[in-house]
């Protein structure tokens, strides 16, 4: 018996229409997602532009009532704390992800994987209080170290999870190809598997850094704030989010403008960091095949 599969003209026409509708919905979703982003950017810059000047980047905050001043110490403080947090969080996060994806088997790995998931849902204020208890209390004072530890704890689960998921996407055939050349597993892992997933891992790292750069709550319990240039990593240190918070809740108009300016700078910092890392990581060079 002969059977032919035919597709009628009308069904093709219908598919085309559905295709267009779906494409339209996709475009609409993109716009909907971008509108708040654009509005936030626009509003932040608009409100903060009056306070955004050279002094803002180079001067310390002025006491209440005195006009001018800037957030130089908070900018440096944020860079310091986020930098230190990344120095702790990125290696620990990536190595844990590699462990879970490539080496982890059995009960221990299952427990780690579970804890990572629990940790990624941890409210940041809890992390702040936790670090307050284990770092700030014993040290006797707030410090940049404590701030960095709390932010590192927040970024580790995100980085671990993305690293693990991305490494799992690397086809098994690549691992086999490496092993068949007589390479030990750690070489295959570093030179073949991680390199195939590098682009995604870097993106995950960026998202994690961007997320913690704006964290305020944990810093209130750990790094606190400082009106002066920082006096060492074991001392309280100013940061943009805390400074923005302090200025935003204060009843002074010029402080409000400065808070907006601080927010603009914070957004710009994250933006520039993303661009720089992307360029350094080589754009579209690293891709997972298939």
């Amino acid at each position: 018996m002969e059977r032919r599969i035919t597709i009628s003209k009308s069904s093709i026409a219908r598919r085309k229409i559905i295709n267009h509708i779906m494409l339209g919905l996709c475009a609409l979703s993109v716009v909907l997602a971008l509108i708040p982003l654009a509005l936030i950017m626009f509003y932040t810059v608009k409100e903060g532009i009056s306070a955004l000047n050279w002094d803002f980047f180079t001067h310390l905050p002025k006491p209440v009532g005195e006009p001018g001043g800037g957030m130089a110490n908070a900018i440096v403080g944020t860079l310091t704390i986020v930098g230190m947090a990344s120095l702790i969080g990125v290696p620990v996060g990536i190595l844990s992800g590699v462990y879970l994806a490539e080496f982890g088997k059995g009960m221990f790995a299952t427990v780690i994987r579970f804890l990572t998931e629990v940790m990624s849902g941890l409210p940041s204020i809890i992390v702040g209080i936790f670090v307050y208890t284990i770092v700030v209390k014993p040290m006797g004072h707030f410090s940049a170290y404590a701030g960095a530890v709390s932010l590192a704890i927040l970024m580790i689960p995100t980085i671990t999870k993305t690293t693990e998921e991305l490494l799992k996407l690397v086809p098994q055939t690549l691992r086999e190809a490496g092993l068949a050349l007589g390479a030990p597993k750690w070489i295959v892992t570093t030179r073949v598997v991680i390199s195939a997933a590098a682009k995604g891992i870097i993106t995950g790292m960026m998202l994690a850094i961007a997320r913690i750069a704006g964290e305020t709550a944990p810093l209130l319990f750990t790094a606190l704030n400082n009106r002066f240039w920082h006096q060492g990593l074991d001392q309280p240190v100013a940061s943009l989010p805390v400074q923005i918070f302090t200025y935003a809740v204060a009843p002074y108009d010029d402080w409000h403008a400065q808070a907006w300016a601080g927010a603009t700078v914070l957004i710009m910092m994250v933006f520039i960091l993303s661009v720089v890392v992307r360029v350094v990581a080589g754009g579209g060079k690293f891709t997972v095949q298939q």
Partner: protein
Amino acid sequence: MQRHDDLIMTEEQTHSDNTSSTPPAETGVKKSDTGQHDAPTKSERLTVGNLGVAFSGNSAIRNITMSFRDGKATAIIGPSGCGKSTLLRALNRMHDIIPTAKVTGEILLDGENVMQMDAVTVRRRIGMVFQKPNPFPTMSIFDNAVAGLRFNGITKRSLLKEVAEESLMKSALWDEVKDRLKQPAMSLSGGQQQRLCIARALAVEPEILLMDEPTSALDPIATAKIEELIHELKTSYTIVIVTHNMQQAARVSDYTAFMYMGELVETGKTRSIFTNPTKKQTEDYITGRFG
């Protein structure tokens, strides 16, 4: 290396029995009954005794007993899904990385138990070309060709260049890529990628080369070149090649093993298998009546 063709020429065609009622693998018993291994004849680089592989308890191959001779090419033929790749991958411990796989029986490399050797050493000595091309996607053509050397700590630029050119020549790819060695490996066509993978395997100079359908993606000209290469390599390597192409098996191999449903039906000199098979299944398969 000395050849022992005379030894092999006088050997009788061997074949394992595929009826499961007989005690497993008479030839394997010969080597293991005393608990002490007789030194295999010099020409048998690699011998397997009563080898079985199961995935999650489902047996994929069983009772495989045969040997692969030095300086010879052995072809493994059989219908799709009969366990050719599974057998090949057992030889260089590739099943180690598949958690569900369980390998039983014995594999001896120059008399040494492969299952107890360090897997990295085994794979360093037994190279493999996979059924599907799998170049490293983040590396250039050149980097792929010498990846094995780099992984083993060789960094001398001039040496890498030399080996890359040599291996790519052997795999019949050099002329097509010599002006674009820096380009990503993924920019090559499927057949070119396969030849790159062959070059990559050759570059580390294994003693035994396992090739899983190395020419299934290649055109007749490239195929002929690879077959030529196998002839050349035979003088210094032991070659095991899986192929679906009967003519190819007849052309390149000295010995042929026919597998069916996870068992070794018959193995022997290629000439006798093709002209005078002892089992009906073998005859049916090579004459194209099934498979």
